[in-house]
């Protein structure tokens, strides 16, 4: 069994891998962590921006907790080069780290469009903690914030910007908001809701240039009047950090989205090297296709599966479910699985007066995708979110219920219970054993 584990990347996948190795081996192996940043949760940065939590709340590990896990942490160091044949990682300071097995979990970075002024002062991304700190400093009460991009990332910080009492305008190049998370009908429902809450949405707008003028930013638009902002936030997409693996000997995908090719144990083409999270082209549990999901739940499951396998277990992974949820101004929006599928049979319903939406997508008797929207103070929204996940994930046979669900897309609970979805789900665990309590390092809890 491998004695020297090397984890490259201290995000969700990396930290879950480390925690799982220690759950399995109790400290028997050597673990080295190489991470450019201190480990923190990107998922909770919006709540730091919204002043709901202190900066200390975002950290998922500290030097002390890593020491307690017996992890040799090389923080602030970047991986520069991997030689898989020689089983050696070279760092940005030239140091070599030999390993018995290695996890590539270097995640993604935010990318800005290649337009003049995108790198100027007052134009930020919101992806890393450092970027979040700059946005925190810039967004003050009464300031005018223009967000470029109306996708999931933008929507996760929408509440926080409003909580800082800024005026928000969102520009989106696509003809509608949330183009990769929900369908047009749900996007329309969300748009109407946000407009009622004082957010200015401008889809179908292309920014051509950003100019700095007297401490403000002027965004020039294709075929429209310029927009002035105190702060610009670019939420225009992310890209996996893979370039450093050129020449490593690992097989990378040439397909759109790229990623390290992995098997059902999340091993790369080199058996001693694993990949997880945003850099791994893992299996989609519904479609069976291999793709990069770049979502937190996939990174978490990938990390745990790799950790168990590194510790000597033999854990095959059936794949991840694409899913997202975001709350904007107390409206919940979530989607699961193959919600954009031309070949699917679709049942949908909207209750405009209550801002509720459901969309169910079937392949045969199986629910393969779903979209849900509704007020977050409506208990049914939250419960249905979970049951839709369960139905898509478990893949139970809903043939007998399709006629009913076609007429009543909102009435999923009887179908969920009567198809014994719970029976199907109960034996399923990611690691083939019950999960442990997270045992957060106490230094993280109390600071």
């Amino acid at each position, binding site marked *: 069994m491998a004695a020297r584990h090397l984890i490259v990347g201290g995000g969700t996948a990396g930290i879950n891998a480390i925690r799982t190795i220690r759950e399995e081996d109790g400290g028997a192996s050597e673990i080295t962590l190489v991470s450019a940043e201190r480990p923190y949760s990107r998922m909770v940065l919006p709540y730091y921006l919204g002043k709901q939590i202190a900066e200390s709340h975002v950290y998922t590990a500290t030097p002390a907790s890593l020491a307690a896990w017996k992890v040799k942490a090389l923080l602030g160091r970047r991986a520069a080069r991997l030689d898989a044949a020689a089983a050696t990682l070279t760092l940005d300071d030239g140091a070599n780290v030999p390993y018995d097995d290695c996890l590539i979990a270097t995640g993604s970075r935010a990318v800005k469009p290649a337009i003049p002024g995108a790198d100027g002062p007052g134009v930020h991304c919101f992806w890393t903690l450092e970027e979040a700190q700059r946005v925190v400093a810039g967004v003050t009460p009464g300031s005018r914030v223009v967000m470029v991009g109306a996708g999931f990332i933008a929507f996760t910080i929408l509440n926080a910007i409003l909580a800082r009492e800024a005026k928000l305008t969102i520009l989106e190049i696509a003809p509608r908001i949330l183009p990769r998370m929900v369908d047009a009908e749900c996007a329309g429902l969300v748009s109407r809701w946000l407009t009622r809450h004082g957010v200015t949405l401008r889809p179908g707008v292309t920014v051509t240039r950003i100019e700095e003028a007297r401490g403000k930013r002027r965004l020039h638009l294709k075929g429209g009047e310029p927009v002035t902002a105190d702060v610009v936030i670019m939420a225009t997409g992310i890209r996996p950090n893979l370039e450093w693996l050129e020449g490593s000997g690992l097989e990378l995908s040439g397909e759109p989205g790229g990623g390290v090719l992995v098997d059902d144990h999340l091993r790369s083409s080199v058996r001693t090297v694993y990949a997880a999270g945003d850099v791994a082209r893992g299996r989609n549990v519904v479609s069976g296709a291999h793709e990069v999901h770049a979502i937190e739940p996939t990174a978490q499951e990938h990390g745990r599966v790799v950790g168990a396998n590194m510790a000597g277990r033999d854990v095959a992974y059936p794949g991840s479910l694409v899913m997202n949820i975001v709350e904007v101004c107390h409206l919940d929006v979530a989607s699961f699985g193959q919600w954009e599928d031309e070949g699917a049979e679709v049942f949908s319903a909207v209750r405009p007066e209550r801002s509720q939406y459901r969309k169910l997508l079937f392949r045969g008797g199986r629910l393969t995708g779903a979209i849900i929207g509704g007020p977050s103070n409506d208990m049914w929204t939250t419960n249905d979110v*979970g049951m839709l996940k369960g139905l898509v994930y478990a893949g139970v046979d809903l043939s007998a219920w399709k006629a009913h669900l076609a007429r009543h897309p909102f009435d999923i609970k009887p179908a969920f*219970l009567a198809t014994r979805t719970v*029976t199907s789900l*109960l034996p399923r665990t990611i690691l083939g054993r019950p*999960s442990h309590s997270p045992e957060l390092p106490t230094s993280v809890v109390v600071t």
Partner: protein
Amino acid sequence: MTVNVLVFHPDRCTGCLRCELYCSYMQTGAFQPAKSVIRVAPMEGYTSYAPYTCTQCAEGWCMTACPVGAIHINAASAKDVIDDRCVGCKLCTIACPYGTMFYDADSQKAYKCDLCGGRPACAEACPTQAIVFEAATTADWVGDFAADRTARVLAQGAA
């Protein structure tokens, strides 16, 4: 070792909803069934009922999904939300495939069945022993019942 779990006997349930009332009081300090984490599902046009809540599943999807470790296993072996850690990001609500995570819009935190720390109010409130807290392996307590009680109306196309 078998621990105590909530066992449901839906055939004994009268739909009196005392469990929801007591549960909401334990969870929030107010009698408001809308905030109960046990839900009684009506079947066959409100003639039979299936109480349903968290199974305390082995995976603990809510717990493993939480990005800040805000869900842990408490002394009663229940997955339990630590309020001070929860930021309200709702990842647990999409991770739990059972639909038994809840979100309190007032506190902006997730919450769920924590087995009341070892003395579940729903079981104490139930007058017909449809809800029992006893040593058992957790199971799908209502699936067969729901299948049976929906078959006739489904066949009539009016479930």
